[in-house]
């Protein structure tokens, strides 16, 4: 503060207290430490932002020249030839994601309904806990599981669209459940009571009142889950397996997907294939960002409406 305060050499007042005007020992170091910590923490924040900026910049720069109409309508030529596109991957991803959404979102929301509307009891506590734990299961292990269960094991179905979708659905399920659970908890109790007061049964209340009230929130969670599922690669390597051709079969022949094709393109040494991989990365990233941002937007709109 003021520099004159240190000049009076009176160390203590007669009462034994140190007057406030005397700066205690170490005050300078403490202030410097405080300043340094502020600078260091701000620098950490900047460092944490850098990777995202770099990734967005680089993916856009390398990908923008590759993505055109051909890229989404043509098949991929051998890696050293230029041109062509990822249509097989796009069709495969669309197919797999549609099936995965049909499987994971109804089950996820139903689980959340059970937890919120019929809980809390011991079973809901166990389900909640294991849903949380399930979010941490390695994606490659989910692939191994579906491979062991459906591709060769009891199912014996072989590689294909459906088993790939099952793997993605298993990845998405806990995300849908956890977010739906939080959204259902936000629905005010008065709305339920009003519905009961009109004579509605419990299932009628849930289906006609609670779920619509939580609608925007449920959409948010589902879209975040889709954004996560769309970029999953590892489980698909073991279930859909990958294909360069457009596959319309529901099950039985290996199916392609954008992330799989991207991985294969990026890990071979030919420049043309790597360029296409950047293009695919741009498309994938744009889709994921679109889903994430729209989901948050719907979520924040819904939140501001109910509050």
């Amino acid at each position: 503060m003021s520099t004159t305060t240190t000049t009076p050499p009176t160390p203590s007042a007669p009462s034994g207290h140190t007057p406030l005007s005397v700066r205690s020992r170490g005050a300078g170091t403490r202030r410097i430490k405080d300043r340094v910590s502020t600078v260091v923490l701000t620098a950490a924040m900047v460092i944490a932002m850098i990777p995202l900026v770099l990734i967005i910049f680089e993916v856009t720069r390398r990908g923008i020249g590759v993505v055109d109409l051909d890229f989404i309508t043509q098949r991929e030529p051998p890696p050293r030839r230029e041109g062509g596109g990822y249509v097989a991957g796009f069709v495969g991803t669309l197919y797999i994601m549609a099936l995965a959404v049909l499987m994971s979102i109804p089950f996820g929301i139903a689980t959340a309904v059970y937890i919120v509307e019929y809980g809390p009891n011991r079973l809901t506590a166990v389900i909640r806990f294991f849903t949380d734990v399930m979010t941490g299961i390695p994606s490659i292990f989910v692939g191994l599981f579906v491979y062991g269960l459906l591709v060769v094991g009891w199912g014996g179905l072989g590689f294909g669209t459906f088993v790939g979708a099952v793997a993605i659905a298993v990845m998405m399920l806990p995300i849908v459940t956890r977010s739906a659970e939080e959204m259902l908890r936000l629905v005010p109790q008065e709305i339920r009571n009003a519905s009961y007061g009109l004579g509605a049964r419990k299932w009628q209340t849930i289906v006609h009142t609670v779920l619509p009230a939580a609608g925007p929130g449920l959409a948010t969670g589902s879209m975040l889950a889709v954004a996560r599922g769309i970029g999953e690669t590892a489980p698909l390597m073991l279930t859909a397996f990958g294909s360069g051709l457009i596959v319309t079969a529901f099950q039985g022949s290996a199916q392609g997907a954008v992330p799989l094709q991207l991985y294969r393109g990026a890990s071979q040494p030919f420049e043309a294939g790597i360029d296409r991989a950047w293009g695919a990365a741009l498309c994938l990233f744009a889709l994921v960002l679109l889903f994430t941002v729209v989901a948050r937007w719907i979520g924040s709109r819904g939140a501001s409406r109910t509050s």
Partner: protein
Amino acid sequence: MSTEAPETPPAREDARRGTLTSSRGRLADPIFKWVVTACGALVLVILALMVLRTVSEAWPVFVKEGFFGFLVGDTWDAGGSRDEITGTYGAWPFIYGTLVTAVIALAIALPLAIMVAVYLTHMAPRRLAKPLSYTVELLAAVPSVIFGLWGLHWFLPNVLRPFFEFLEATLGWFFLFEGPVRGVGYLPAGIVLAIMILPIMTAIIREVVAVQPLEQQMAAYALGSTRWEVVSKVVLPSSFSGIVAATMLGLGRALGETIAVLMLIGGSQSWGASLFGTGSSMASHIAATFGEASPEGRTGLMAIGVALFLVTMIVNILARVIVWRLGQHTGDAAV
């Protein structure tokens, strides 16, 4: 959250006049309840099936090598047999690779996550705090294959490789930084992993830091503490268990990450002390060799998967128990 009211309607006696008399209406409620209960139990069924299927699939390998022999053996030589186990299965090189990359990732991400979390809660200008934390969480949305592509074709040649060559030139006498620098290896995989686990760790630490009681902080300020003293002596010590939980969740992610590691770790089956050396993690080895593996080899990969699952489950359950005891809700980025 119990909503008992409608289940015991007070007007039982004149029910024959109301809608409750129709048999369809009477059955609908229990049916609905059973359907949602079954959906809820599905999670448990899936997890049980996971354990059963993969363990039974991998069982022959564990029988032949012994569980600990499988973990510490350092030769992986998959046989080509169709229905018996003829090869040698030792997963140590992959376990080593997994541990090394995860430790590198945590060593970088943990301090950074703590600093970012503290910055966001205590120092960021009020208007910037939300967009900034949103941006960090956006990093969690980037698919791992894009991290791999970016890491392999931009970050590694342009940033990491020159940095590694510098490290090798100055610290090459130290066994961790022994050359040659090949580009891909444990260190680049660990660094990219650090970027990938940063968002989830930041999100959890931020929430734990944000709910520390304000009274204690105000009291510390009233005693004349600087902001740094409040953070380092009041806020962080009481956030310790949350930081532990975040570390374990980050560790769980780092152990199981596949594609980005696969593209950056080099994919060899050897192991060595130098961080510049190439290797494989458990997950990356499964993904790299699965396509061409024989049925017997796939059994071996299944065994690696089971070991990986065990480790990540233990780490995750510990982390979740800590988080639950804190009574925290993890944010969207954390799922």
